[in-house]
Structures are given as C-alpha cells and as structure tokens.
C-alpha cells in the first residue's frame, strides 16, 4: 500500500506539489489523473525515493521514503514516463539485464506476469527500439515486475499508445491488482479513470478531488446539459450565446455537441430551451437534454473555478 500525507515540493522556484495526500490500499489500482505539468512525475519521483519532499511524509509498502529508501526501492517496481529500456538490446536482453540488477532468475517472469510476457515473447530477439509503442510498454512492465514488487508505479504508461493496446495494458494491470499488487498509475486520458478503483484529480500541483469513478456524477455540482444542433455549423453561435448567459456555469464544445454546466439547483431543460429561444434561436433544430457528467466534465468544472488570467481572456475574446 501507499500512504502519502501532505506532500509539498518546490522545483526551480515554483511549487510543483502543494499538500498532496494519497491512500492506496493493497490490491487496488489508483489513478492519478492530470495533464502535463500537473505534478504527476514529481509525485512519483518522491514516492520512489528519487526526490525528497519539502514537507509531508510518504510510506510505501510499509517503509518511510525518507528514512527507509533502500527497502522502498526493493518493494517498488517503477515504470517512468520516458522509455527507459535499451533500444539496441533485444527484448530478452533487456529483461535479463533487469533480472541481473535485481539478482533474480529471469525465468521468474513467467510466474510473475506470464500473460503479458507471452504477448511479447514471440519477439524476444527483436531490438526493443523496433517494437511498437504498445509492445514497448508491455516490455517495460515486465522489466518493472521482474523482482516481484509489492507496489507498482507507472507514470503515463499509455501515452501515445493506440486505444486497442491501451485497453490490453489495462487488462494486464487489473490482473496484477487482483493478485494483490498495489498499483499507482498516472494518465492524461480521462477515459482511463473508469478502469481504476479510485482516482485523484491533480491540477497544477494540487489535488482537486479524490473519488471512485462511480462517484463522478455525485461530485458534480448542479446539472450538466448536452446540446446538439442539427447543423454543427451553428455550434459557434450557440457557444457564444450560452457563455453570455449569467446562469451558465461553464460551456464548452464536446465533440459535435455542447456541454453546459448549470450549477444552480432547480434548473430544468425548459429553462435552457426558453433562454435559447429568447435569444432568437430556432429551438426545433436543437436537442437539449441532461446527461451524466464524465470525469472530464468534473475536471473542467473543478478547474474552471481556478481559471488563470490567460484562459479567462480566451473565454471572453
């Protein structure tokens, strides 16, 4: 398990993490959800003892990261965001290299992560640099697992990996959690949040919220409406109208639809429709209906409150 309490860290004069706490029980997958610059990598660096926190404490697999870093390093398997394998070594050589560093027999891989290893074993003699993105990540996972760590930390393992391989990778992670491994994984793909037991939304070094994926709708303030125009060419005008509405709590395009947050209680669909009609819109060509907010909607709601000057300007051209 992982217990982090009140972690703060300043990097290069700017705060990278501010009072971040995490509790990950054994056998669960915890997702760190946030964009580039949210502080995900800094948090990993602290939890795997590569960096010291300015404030706060972290206990990983039962060991304090500040005082028992040797034990922490043996307990943790870490897959950093940058491809960390040797491109000119073959798949098998990479695995042997990591096995030797950790003084483990390489054959253990079969009992540890046999299902993943079997997917890449046919390419054992291929140089790692010549693997596809998804395959590289599977090899990196095998190398991170070779010493049978109790805690697995993965920093954006699926970035740039195609949707099919991403889904295979998540299946592998679930298998590991089911066998009692504690998994902390970061991602900037919000849809992957649904595959975690619990998620922390991280933005510019602070925790916006911590919740189970099923609690997203409950954490969303007010009602979310989806507005679809028969002709998407009207979306620009609709966005402008809805953004100018004093009751609107945030409005943005969501693919070919528009999402409108209405933070006040008691607003009904008809309220939205009659506002648009009052603004001279032919509402017979528009659909308005309340929808279940996604993690992205929640994330947007939580971040638009703390808007920076520059993005506010972008909202009011």
């Amino acid at each position, binding site marked *: 398990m992982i217990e982090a309490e009140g972690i703060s860290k300043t990097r290069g004069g700017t705060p990278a993490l501010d009072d971040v706490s995490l509790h990950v029980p054994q056998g669960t997958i915890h997702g760190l959800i*946030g*964009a*580039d*610059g*949210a502080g995900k990598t800094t948090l990993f660096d602290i939890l795997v003892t590569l960096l010291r926190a300015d404030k706060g404490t972290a206990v990983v697999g039962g060991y304090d990261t500040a005082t028992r870093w040797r034990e922490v390093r043996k307990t943790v398997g870490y897959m950093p965001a940058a491809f960390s394998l040797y491109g000119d070594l073959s798949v098998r050589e990479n695995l042997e290299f990591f096995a030797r560093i950790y003084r483990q027999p390489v054959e253990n891989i079969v009992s540890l992560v046999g299902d993943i290893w079997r*997917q890449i074993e*046919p*390419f054992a003699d291929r140089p790692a*640099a*010549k*693997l*596809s*993105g*998804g*395959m*590289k990540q599977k090899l990196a996972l095998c190398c991170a697992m070779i010493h049978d760590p109790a805690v697995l930390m993965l920093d954006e393992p699926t*970035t*740039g*990996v*195609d*949707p*099919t*391989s*991403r*889904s*295979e990778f998540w299946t592998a992670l679930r298998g590991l959690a089911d066998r009692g491994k504690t998994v902390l994984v970061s991602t*900037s*793909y*919000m*849809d992957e949040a649904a595959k975690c037991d619990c998620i922390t939304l991280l*933005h510019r070094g602070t925790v916006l919220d911590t919740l189970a994926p099923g609690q997203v709708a409950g954490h969303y303030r007010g009602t979310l409406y989806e507005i679809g125009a028969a002709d998407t060419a009207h*979306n*620009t005008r609709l*966005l402008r109208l809805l953004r100018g509405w004093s009751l609107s709590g945030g409005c*943005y*395009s*969501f*693919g*070919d*639809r528009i999402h409108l947050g209405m933070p006040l209680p008691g607003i009904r669909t008809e309220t939205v429709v009659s506002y648009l009609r009052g603004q001279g819109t032919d509402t017979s060509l528009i659909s308005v209906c309340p929808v279940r907010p996604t993690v*992205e909607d929640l*994330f*947007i709601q939580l*971040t*638009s409150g703390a808007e920076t000057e*520059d*993005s506010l*300007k*972008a909202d009011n*051209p």
Partner: protein
Amino acid sequence: MTQEGKNIIVQHLTRRFGDFTAVDDLTFGVERGEVFGFLGANGAGKTTAIRMLCGLLKPTSGRAEVAGYDVARRPEQVKRRIGYMSQRFSLYDDLTVGENLQLFGTIYGLRRAALRERTEEMYRKLEMEPLKNQLVGGLPPGWKQKIALSAAMLHRPEVLFLDEPTGGVDPLGRRRFWELILDAADEGTTILVTTHYLDEALYCNRTLIMADGQMKALDKPRTLMREYGARDMDDLFGKLTRSTAVPDTTAKEGEA
C-alpha cells in the same frame, strides 16, 4: 484533374517497404474547409500515409493531390501550401514565443513585412501579446499547443496536418484548442487530424479508420457508430480494428 472543391484527392494510394504493405490502396477525398479525422492503431499506416500526402515520401503506386498539386511530381509545391504540427516536434523551448514564430515563418519563406503582419494577427487572435518575449519552455502545455498551431499556420496553408496535436493537454485546454481548429476550418483551411483521444473524432466532419494499411470505414462519426451499432467511438474503434490489429507487434516505418 482537380475535382471541384476537393483539397485532398487520394486515389489507390499504396506504399510498400520491401514485401510489407504499409498503406494499401487508399482512396478518398477531403473537401475544402473539412475537418477530416484519421484514426488507426499504432502501425496501421497513418504516419506513412501522412508522409506521402506531405510530399515527404513517394507512393509505390496510386496517386494523391494536395492543394492542387501531385504529391509525387510536385512535392515542393505541396510543401509550400501545407502546415504540419505534431505534439512531439513543435517548438524550441529555449527560444521565446516571438523567436519561434519568426523562425517558422522564415522557414516557410515569409518576407519580413508579411511575417510581422501575420505574427501581430496571431497575437491579437490568441491574445498572447504579453507572452511574446517569454521562453516557450516555461509555458503551460495548452499554450505551447496554441503557439505551435500558430506557427504551422503563419503562412496561411491551404491544408493543415495535425498529428496527435492535443496529447498531454488538460481537458479545458483541449477544448479551447479544438475551437481554434474549427475556426480555421470555418475560414476555409482543410484539416487532417490524427488523435488517440477517440472522443475527439466527434469534432471531425468525417472520420477514416485504418487498420493494417487499409481503409476500414469512412463516414461521419455518428453515422459510423449507428451503422456498426457502437456505443461510442471507443467501441466503434474496437469493432473495426480489433480483429485485425492484434497482435500489435510491428514497428513499421515511421510509426513507433
């Protein structure tokens, strides 16, 4: 043989590397001002196709015309009329915003007066005047993407290729970025975009889904979802690519 209103014309476009066919008989057209999504697994052939359309790689057979010019016979004319932006290679972190725009403008052959005028226009449009003397390296990812897009559009390309343009950007930043793309399309720029965020396919007028070098489907995203009985784009992508995309094993030319 330009077809009316089409800014990209692709006919039986094929590229082989040895006995491996990376792009296999692609045929489609993209209208002026259309936002055209290009989806596929790693190794499906997207990058190879885009490299041919940008005039960087010769087709083995078939042909393609971009902005009115044949990509194999007049690649230099094509390159002058297109813009390219990707998440991986975009800006120089240790140059300021202004220096980056100047660099890209000069590479695209803009003269000083035109460069100054268009840079000013970009500053106004994106309200980034206060940022112009800041180093790009210190800016948040959302801003970097907007500036990279500006750099790719300074020379007013007819066709804009966007290769996974929104990776790592927060949800609000991604949506703002897409609004800029849609604005550019409204003004007549043809957009061809690849993305791994499948929900973003819904911003596109039409989406082409590729697997194993071949075109598996091409239509409006919602039409495709209906046709294949898919819950969402993720489901559609799975249905169209899974049978052929597994095993995901090949590191094909230019596609890591």
